């Protein structure tokens, strides 16, 4: 029971880390960033570069944040900005951007798998069960991310402005908040988070030009059932991630792989607002 429980919590933590950037963008801008997977890949390669340069694997994480942020900012400026009123087109355009990111990575590196040194190896014993230390650290990261983002949104004036734009953009503009700037910053931050997530999962994932795509659909579904709340996302990660672990354990991984997408579709059919309160 203990390992299944730990699997459940760590899976939820990984899903939370992977989805939070997408949620931030969806919450503020009401559009789905399909380049999220591509940005995660970028983060994975940041970790590869950190290894290649002989830096500590931990350096890969801020490096990923910088890469993702820069790429995200340019994407917002050049492409996403003109699609605020065309949310379905925004999905397609960001998907196109994801293709572009993947191909550029392929051209710069190659199509193959690359090596990134994991920050930590080994297992520690939890209630007599040996368990992957890194997966446990990811729980801490997820908590840190959740608390950090919540504090950033609640404690800083930019965060306050961001929340205001989420709640009522027109009113926020009338109070002197430059909502365009808030969107830019949000997209940059969301992209940075995507890349950080990519760097964080490298110890558990292969680093190749498609690494992020595998996570995209799960992240996308989680965000849709979470609306725009970080809290709902935590609930959704635990419920859907948990369902995936349970289904994989008792009905096989093949069904487990479909769990998040299928369950989310059904949840949204029954309750269009998903796990959020509104």
């Amino acid at each position: 029971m203990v390992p299944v429980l730990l699997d459940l919590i760590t899976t939820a933590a990984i899903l939370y880390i992977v989805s939070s950037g997408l949620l931030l963008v969806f919450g503020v801008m009401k559009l789905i960033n399909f380049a999220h997977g591509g940005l995660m890949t970028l983060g994975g390669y940041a970790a590869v570069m950190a290894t290649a340069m002989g830096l500590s694997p931990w350096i890969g994480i801020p490096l990923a944040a910088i890469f993702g942020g820069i790429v995200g900012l340019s994407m917002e400026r050049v492409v996403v900005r003109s699609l605020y009123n065309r949310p379905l087109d925004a999905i397609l355009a960001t998907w196109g951007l994801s293709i572009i990111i993947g191909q550029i990575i392929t051209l710069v590196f190659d199509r193959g798998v690359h090596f990134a040194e994991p920050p930590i190896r080994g297992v520690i014993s939890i209630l007599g069960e040996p368990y992957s230390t890194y997966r446990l650290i990811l729980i801490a990261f997820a908590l840190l991310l959740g608390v950090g983002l919540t504090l950033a949104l609640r404690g800083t004036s930019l965060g306050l402005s961001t929340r205001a734009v989420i709640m009522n953009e027109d009113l926020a503009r009338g109070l002197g908040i430059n909502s365009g700037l808030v969107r830019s910053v949000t997209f940059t931050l969301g992209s940075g988070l995507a890349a950080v997530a990519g760097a964080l999962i490298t110890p558990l994932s292969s680093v190749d030009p498609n690494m992020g795509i595998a996570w995209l659909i799960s992240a996308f579904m989680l965000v849709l059932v979470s609306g725009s709340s970080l809290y709902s996302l935590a609930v959704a990660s635990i419920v859907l991630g948990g369902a995936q672990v349970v289904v994989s354990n008792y009905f096989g991984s093949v069904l487990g792989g479909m769990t998040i997408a299928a369950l989310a579709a059904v949840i949204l059919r029954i309750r269009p607002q998903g796990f959020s309160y509104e």
Partner: protein
Amino acid sequence: MTEVVLAVNGLSSGYGQATVIRNLDLKIARGEIVTVVGKNGMGKSTLLKSIMGYLPKFSGSVSMAQHAITDSHPHQIARLGVAYVPQEKALFQDLTVEENIRLALRGSASWNEAKAAIGRCFPFLLQRLQQKAGTLSGGEQKMLLMARSLSVGAKMLLIDEITEGMQPSIISNLVKIIKTERDRSDLGVLLVEQNIPFTRAVSDRYVLLDKGEISGSGNTRDPDTHEKIAAHICL
């Protein structure tokens, strides 16, 4: 009269294809309180939204303290010192009282000055800074709205039907506060109203709006004010 703070020249605007405001001229001087009176659907709110940059201006120009704001965005206009109080959805219900006010503070305006202004006008709010705005009563929410607009160091207030659903006693208090703050910092105030007693008590001038055009105006001290306005807005 002294320096003009808000000048509207030949403004036409509206929604999409529909022209609601037609060729409208209006000037507000510093320290002047002007009320636009009209029935629902005559374009009062549209006028404020157009000035604030929410709606496209089809023709004409608007300037605020000598800055042309005809093509400016709402946030730029707000930063020039215009505090706008919309009629509906004017508060962030899920944010606290303090957050609602802080959101409007820009650059020079400090939280301490804002608190001082709140203490002067609506001292009860200081005890409730951490309360969610949505949990305030309807009347209290209106006062929070006023508090927000008065605490940001604005030069010009645009207020859309603040008295809607307000108790008469609160209304008379509001009149006092608006006038005091006007005297204190030489504010220009543009109100949109249907409440005749409030209009008479608070403003220096009134303008009658009819189907997007100004159909009359006057000084609120004129003895026939009530009749003129009543004839305009009642059945």
